[in-house]
Structures are given as C-alpha cells and as structure tokens.
C-alpha cells in the first residue's frame, strides 16, 4: 500500500504503547455525573430539568438552543442534584447538570430498528439531531450541521477520520479494532444522508492492524476504501486529512464542503450508527486514560459526565506524582488544574504526565531559525505572527496568517527558543475578534 500524507508537519513520539493493547472495557456506573451544557461549538444547551427531578439513563435533560447547538441526555439514572458551574475539560468553569446515581441504572428503551439502513435521510438526520451528537474528535462541531450542507454544495466523498495523530491516544484505534463493522455502518449511513458516492477511511501507518482489518471488511465494497497514511502530525486536522486522503485542497477560510467532502471522526460514525439504529443518544464514549503515572492505562467506555478523578481511580490510581493532567492529547489538549473536570462528548483522552515530563523550559528570544515556518502545515509564518501579536501589530499578524492558523501546535513543538507560539496566536485571534466587533 502506498502511504499518503500532506505537506509540512512533525513527527512526535507516538507514546501509544501505554494503552494501545488494552481492549475497551466498561466503566461501572459512577456515583454521580456532571453533564456540561456546553460540550460543543455553538450555543450552550438549555436545561429542561430541575434540581430534584428523577431522570432515566438516556432521557433528555437539556434542549438544543438553536440550529448550531445540541441536546444533552442523562448518562445514568438518578436524581438531578445540582445545576451549577463545574470544571469543564478545558479547565474553565461552566454550567453543568449534576446527576446523583440511584444505583439502579434504569434506562429508556433503545429499540432496534431492523430497517435502519433504508430510512429516509430526513428521518436519519432527525435521529442524529435528537441524539445530541457532536464531533467526537475534539472540536465538537454539531454533527447535524455538518450533515446539512446547502443544496448548491453537493458532497461526493465522506472521509472518516481514523488518524488519531495525537500522541498517547488510543480510543479511536481500539474502536476501529473492536467495532469495525459499526464504523462501516456509520460511514454508509453518513453517505446516504449526504448522498455521497464514495467513502474513505483514513488511518495512519502506526495502526497497520486497523488498516488491515478495515481493508479485509471492505474487500467487497467497491465504493468504500481505506487510505493508509504516513505518520505525520497533524494529519487528523480536517484540511490536512482531506488533502492526504483525496488530494483536494480546502480553500483557505473555507469549509470541506467547498470541495465536496464531509469529514467525520470514527467515534462519531459509531454514535451516528447507534442513534439511527437504536435511537440511542450520545451518552457514553471511549476515553483513553494513559500516561506514565497511570498504574493501569485503559481504554474505557464511560458515561458522559464521569469525573476524571473517578476514571484515574478505576485505572488503579497513580504510581508517581502527577505533574500535568491533560484533557485530550498532548499536542492540542488542555492542561487541568486538578482532576475535578468531567468527561464531555469530545473527551478522547486523559493523559497524565509525571513531574519531569510536565516541566518546560523558559522562553528565549526568537532566533528567527524558521523551523516553525518549515513545518507549518498551513504554510504560515508562525514566528512572525507571534512577534506581530507581541508588538500589537494585528495587520502584520493577519498577513502572516493569523486567521488561517489551525492551532495544531507543531510550531511550538519544534521551537528551540521554547516560544509559546500557540498562546500568542490565540491572543492574536481574540484581539482580532475584538477589533472586528468594534468596526
């Protein structure tokens, strides 16, 4: 198989060995879950329950607040014990609904629909919207919005993202190994919804067994294909994946539909499959709990809203002192002040670092070595953007590519001067948005 890739990028150590061989195991029903109202890009969901209400697993507890929004569902049965601010996996505090378990795990019905493959696309979409699905790769864009392209933007290819290019994370890998059929069913359903003729699954070369497994299942499917990809970060970024898998370039500032492509994460594909076939809302997901301090790194199927501290405890706790707790992968994830945050639909991993790995060196003046320029997958000038932001020259920052940055962190990864380039770029993006508002 000829492996494909995109221009630019870096090769961090993948560190997947901690958890890659751990099969998905079920996390036992926790004592309580804290379900965030903002698990996605768009308006936070509006609660439809009150403190004291009894809820069943799978019952809707918050409604979508507009088109670019999603509903939320109880992930365990029990009593609504609190509606208040709680720690989000980004480390910030935001509104969430706390449910205290009744220990009974009573669930609403998830009836099997034998004709699920032949439903009207609109029915499928309704079920996805009702299930509260958003992108599970991290960004969390409401899936229903992505699957509703305007009439004048026909989609011909659906790309499933099985790249998992973030170091440490193995949740998508385990899913591809253990639920390959469901992923393929999900892909077929997405293709039916957007009327695409072709389906592609992109997987990186460090998961050869997943590539082989998918290939084997797709031998008889003429319109479905596995694309093997060279290991290169950030291949899981939408534009980079589309280029690697289909050789199409999404225009700068544009969306994948501009080139007739829709991208969905493999985890999202499974959620779509479950939503359409069983009308099951997105109430659990696979999360990798990994890193050197974790006694027994695992890939857990856990209810949305589970406390990170509960996950770590289930993995046997820690063998050394934690220096950093990262929600998501180490390239783009958020470092948390404590393990009090709870899982959202985008929580693909919880990565713990020991104190040594958590240390970073002091920032040095930019040498202008241009390593960041050489590896930038978006072909920008990261060091120039950062400098322009530092000296409050927003025009220059924009010229150097501020608005095209996907914040993959490759530039900061290779910077010998340890400059926190992504942080400067983030600041720049915020200042730019403020400046636009004032206009």
């Amino acid at each position: 198989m000829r492996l494909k890739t995109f221009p630019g990028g870096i090769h961090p150590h993948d560190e997947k060995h901690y958890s890659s061989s751990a099969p998905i195991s079920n996390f036992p029903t926790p004592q309580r879950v804290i379900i965030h109202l903002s698990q996605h890009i768009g308006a936070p969901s509006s609660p439809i329950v009150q403190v004291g209400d009894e809820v069943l697993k799978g019952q809707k507890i918050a409604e979508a607040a507009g088109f670019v929004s999603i509903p939320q569902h109880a992930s365990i049965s029990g009593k609504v014990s609190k509606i208040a601010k709680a720690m989000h996996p980004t480390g910030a505090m935001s509104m969430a609904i706390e449910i205290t378990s009744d220990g009974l795990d009573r669930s609403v019905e998830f009836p099997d629909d034998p004709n699920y493959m032949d439903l009207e696309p609109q029915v499928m979409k309704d079920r996805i919207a009702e299930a509260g699905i958003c992108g599970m790769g991290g960004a969390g864009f409401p899936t229903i919005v992505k699957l509703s392209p305007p009439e004048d933007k026909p989609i011909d290819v659906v790309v499933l993202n099985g790249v998992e290019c973030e170091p440490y994370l193995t949740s998508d890998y385990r899913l591809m190994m253990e639920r390959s059929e469901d992923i393929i069913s999900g892909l077929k359903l997405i293709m039916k919804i957007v009327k695409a003729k072709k389906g592609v699954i992109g997987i990186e070369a460090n998961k050869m067994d997943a590539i082989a497994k998918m290939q084997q299942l797709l031998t008889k499917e003429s319109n479905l294909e596995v694309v093997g990809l060279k290991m290169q970060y950030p291949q899981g970024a939408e534009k980079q994946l589309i280029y690697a898998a289909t050789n199409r370039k999404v225009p700068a500032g544009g969306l994948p539909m501009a080139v007739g492509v829709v991208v969905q994460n493999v985890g999202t594909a499974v959620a779509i499959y479950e939503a359409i076939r069983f009308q099951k809302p997105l109430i659990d997901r696979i999360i990798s709990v990994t890193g050197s301090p974790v006694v027994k790194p695992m890939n857990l199927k856990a209810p949305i809203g589970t406390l990170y501290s509960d996950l770590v405890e289930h993995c046997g706790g820690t063998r050394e002192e934690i220096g950093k707790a990262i929600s998501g992968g180490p390239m783009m994830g958020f470092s948390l002040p404590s393990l009090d945050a709870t899982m959202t639909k985008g929580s693909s991993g919880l990565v713990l670092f020991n104190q040594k790995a958590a240390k970073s060196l002091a920032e040095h003046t930019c040498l202008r070595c241009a390593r960041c320029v050489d590896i930038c997958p978006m072909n920008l000038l990261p060091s120039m953007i950062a400098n322009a932001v530092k000296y409050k020259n927003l025009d220059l920052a924009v010229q150097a590519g501020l608005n095209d940055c996907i914040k993959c962190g490759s530039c900061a990864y290779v910077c010998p001067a340890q400059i926190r380039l992504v942080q400067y770029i983030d600041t720049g993006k915020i200042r730019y948005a403020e400046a636009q508002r004032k206009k």
Partner: protein
Amino acid sequence: MKDKYIVSPAPHVHDKSTVKNVMWNVVIALIPALLFAVYYWGLRALILTLTGAIAAVITEAIIQKLRKVPVTVHDGSAFLTGMLLAYNIHVGAPIWLPIVGAVFAIGVGKQVFGGLGNNPVNPALLGRAFLLASWPTQMTAGWVAAKNSAMSGLNNLSRIATNLQELSPKAYELVTGATPLKVAQSLRDTSFVADINAQAGGLNLGGRIFDSLTELATLKSLFWGNIGGCIGEVSAFALLLGAAYLLYRNIIEWRIPLFYIGTVFVLSLIFGGIPGSGSSVMLPFFHIFAGGLMLGAFFMATDYTTTPITKKGRIIFGIGCGLLTIVIRLVGGYPEGVSYSILLMNVFTPLIDKITMPKPFGKVAK
C-alpha cells in the same frame, strides 16, 4: 483555589531542541575544518581560534553584566561568533587581531542591538569587515603557506614553466605569495598579464597560469586544504563534512547553501574565463572550492537571525549572495567577495521577508 498540577498552554510535548543545543552543534560542525587547519598550518590555527572564541565569550559576559541582564554565554552563541570570526583570519596574523575583532563583533555587532536574535547583520562578518577596514595589512600580509605547498596551491609549478622564477619573477611572486583567488584576480588585469608575458619573452604565461588553476592537482589542493588562506577557508572537504552534519541534524536548511553555491557555479562557468586561456569547464569547481564560499554558504549565510525566514526568501537570499560574490570576485577590487556579499544580503533580509510572504495552504492566487 490553588492549582494542583502545572497549567500551561498546549502543546505539552516538545522535540527537546534548545538554543544551546543548536549553537554547540554548529561549533561541533566547525571542528573538522579546525583539525585540517592545524594539520596544514600548525597549532597556531587552534590558538587563534580559541583566542577569538574566548574573547567573544568574555566580551558578551561583561556587556551583559553591565546591561544588568542575565549572562547567557553558556548558550554557545558568543563562542560560535568568536570562532567564526577567527576563521576569517589567516594563521600569520597577530594574536590581538581576533581579540579586537571578537570584541567588535559581540559589542557592536550583537549586544548593541539587544543580543541574540536581534542583530541585523552577521556579527562575525561585521567583525571581519571592521578588521579589514582598520588593519588591512595585518589582515592580508604574512600569509602562511600550507605544508608541502606553494602559497596558491599551484603545487606543480614546473608544469607551468620549468624555470618560472627566472622566466618571470613577477609571475613567480604571484603564484607563491598569495591565495588562489588572488592569482585569479590578478590575471584578470590585462596590463599585469602583458607584463609577465613580456618578462617571459612573449610566452602566454598568464594564460598558462590561469589554466593551471583548474587543473585537477590544484582542485585537489583546494578540496583537501593544501593551500594558503584564512583558517576557515582551509578545506572544502572538512567544511562539507560539517555541513552534512548540520543538514542531517536539521540545524541548517538546504535552500540558501544550494542556491548560493549553485549561482556561483553557473555564473563562473559563464563569466569566469579570461582571454588567452582556454576557458575551462572546470572553472566553476575552482570558484566553489576556493576562498570562503563553503564556510560562507553553509555557516554564515545560514545564520538564523540575519537571513530570511520564508522559503522563497531563502532562495532569493542565496541567489543574491552568489551574484554579489561573483561580481566582487570578477569585477570588484577584492579577490574574495563572500563576506561582503552575505553582509549586504543581510541588510536586505527584512525586505525579502516582506515581499515573499507565503500563501496559506488552500489560498488561491487572486
């Protein structure tokens, strides 16, 4: 609430590269050339180099103390500047020369602008230009010949003429008393050539000497370093060895050296010849191996701070350096043009960056 763990912006992993690591690696890459210099010219090459490097380190430390900023000499950048400066001096030079040069390079070339990362032109080259302008005699007189070689690297003088010394004292003085590039430059002067030809009784001596510059024996001398010259001009081979290391370690990038050397190669092929000499296809090899081109292209024109960051800009920078080098060598008043061409192009760096801003991935030209 107090944070239990370290909270910092992503990414949380790093390739472990540091400024220190980069600088000391360049120093390592310069060591083969130093060994060759010691082999051909003796221990004095090492003494001058260390003197320059240590003077640079001490200067930087003193200035940083005076500026009340952290002393960062352990990062290796001052050591490297001092070393590169010394590489621009020949072994016959007095010991104070690299000291004065290093003080100027670090003081005026670097610290005045705020230190590493802020200087507009290459400090080592600025130091060299200062020395050449202030003490031209010490910078150029008293060249030391390499072991077993005539000064210019034209080893087999009898091949030019069996009795060159008697035939034309002027020609003999030229090939034994100067660097190969000086020989090439002198022979571009038609009245000089007429003089030595007349001394030799109408023999086409000028043409013959010029031809001998591109003979395999001469090119071999240049490649291995069996010639007269500055410490860092010693052996193209030793410098290429260091360059290969830097390319392999991803410390320098290929664009500038390739386009610099490529431009010199092509232009010397077209314009390098003189009348009276069978213009040789080997001339480009003479021009890329002679003088400071290898040192300049791989170790000076790749200096991070003073060269463009854009990929296209680096190509323009390389071509510009090559063009200026050839203009100085073939038309200008100096036999060698590497350092001035890099210094001049350094000045254009901000402009080059400005006009070569890349288009983001997916951006279509309007």
